[in-house]
């Protein structure tokens, strides 16, 4: 299952797309896996996950059919 990375999350991982293990089936598990794999992410003020271009809550299920993205604190404008 692939996950898109943006902003400083992309810089921390060093790549714009990562593959995550298949046993991850919800947003909470994805966040836990990300914090464990890339500890520098823990220093961010927030870390949101978007599923199919919508901000997702921790309980939301994810599958390989979804477009999943890691959204660090936004800074547009």
């Amino acid at each position, binding site marked *: 299952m692939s996950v898109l990375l943006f902003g400083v999350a992309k810089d921390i991982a060093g790549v714009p797309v990562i593959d995550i293990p298949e046993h991850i089936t919800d947003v909470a598990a994805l966040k836990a896996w990300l914090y464990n794999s890339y500890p520098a992410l823990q220093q961010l003020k927030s870390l949101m996950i978007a599923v199919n271009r*919508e901000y997702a809550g921790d309980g939301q299920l994810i599958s390989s059919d979804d477009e999943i993205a890691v959204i660090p604190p936004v800074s547009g404008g």
Partner: protein
Amino acid sequence: MDVLIKIKEIITVQEALEFIQAPECGGEVIFAGTVRNHTKQRSVLKLFYECYEAMAVSEMHKIAQQVQEKWPVQKLAMLHAIGDKYPGDLAVVIAVASAHRGVAFDACEFVIDTLKETVPIWKKEFFADGEII
């Protein structure tokens, strides 16, 4: 309400202004956000803006939807620049036209405040001292 949403390399106030012109509207409020040459007392060389474009456009449409629910606004333009931007360059333009100016001020400020909170766009700051944040 007519809505113009664009994310692209070069944006202009003119494009937003032309879009919101309407003879039934008397009050137009435009916010233009430009790149400052310093931030927190540090000299800025340039900014680099990137976005998650499909989701950014979707979130901008959600903001437009909220504006439509809250205020009698006739026209709304939201333009955001991406790529390298230097001091003085435009980064964002929000333009609102309404029959009444108080509404236009409130809606314009709501849009830029919300955009900064919810729209997946990121800037990287390149400082004169070599640091990049």
